[in-house]
């Protein structure tokens, strides 16, 4: 898999609410387990296309949805994955 972006959550409820709202607004997303590179705990993340970031931020802000942050998951030369926080 190539580089991708995720919104990562601390709360499963906020993750599910965000998923529903984004889908209602016609944004294509994939709900996935939080990548190990972000947190070892069991959590949910939403994978999205970077072109949608402004709209996602807007919807999350309007609905007071909390998150761990937005992360970019990248692969280095050795195929190791790394998570870079790009927004809180």
């Amino acid at each position, binding site marked *: 898999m190539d580089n991708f972006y995720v919104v990562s959550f601390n709360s499963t409820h906020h993750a599910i609410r965000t998923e529903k709202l984004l889908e209602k607004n016609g944004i294509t997303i994939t*709900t*996935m387990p939080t990548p190990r590179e972000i947190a070892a705990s069991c959590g949910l993340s939403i994978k999205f296309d970077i072109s949608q970031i402004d709209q996602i931020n807007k919807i999350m802000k309007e609905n007071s949805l909390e998150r761990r942050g937005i992360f970019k998951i990248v692969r280095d030369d050795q195929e190791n994955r790394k998570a870079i926080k790009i927004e809180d």
Partner: protein
Amino acid sequence: MSIKVDARGQACPLPVINTKKALESIDEGVVEVRVDDLAPKENVIKFAKSINCQAEIISENGMDVTIKITKSKDTKIDIKDEDIKCDISSDNSYIVAIMSNKLGNGNEELGHVLIKSYLFALTETNPLPKSILFLNGGVELTTINNATVENIKILEEKGVEILSCGTCLDYYELKQALKVGSITNMYTIIEKMNDCSKVITLG
């Protein structure tokens, strides 16, 4: 005195049992065991060490390996043939049977999220299952649930066989809605489950 055991082509635990028989036939000396797969090699060495025999690899050509086992007078073999188990299995294949449109009992909404999450994570797993069987409410995942269909398609592209229960598709009137994999019947489902050493059932 040296006894040669040719265990090539034999499935576990036969190589170990034949090694044991050869060792039992002598008071002391050397038994050379030839194997041609990783699991028998590991299992034979492990067995030899467990009965305090020396084991060393004397020739190795790819998977074709000869192990030299040295038995001394005070080696005791007190394990029965039927107790010999293969700790290292060369067959790590498995199939997954999904029996419901959600994962586990409890909150329904959470169950839907979890099954989606599971199928996503499965696409990144190694080794992948040989097949995934979808039964009862599980057929929703190969038909009307777009999020899961997408990940199941990725699994199919990676070589995982995707099978949905025909009776179930028919019952839920979802036959026309099948988006990934093929339709199967109970006979095939039974065969798939019987042919595989490990079946993971979710639902």
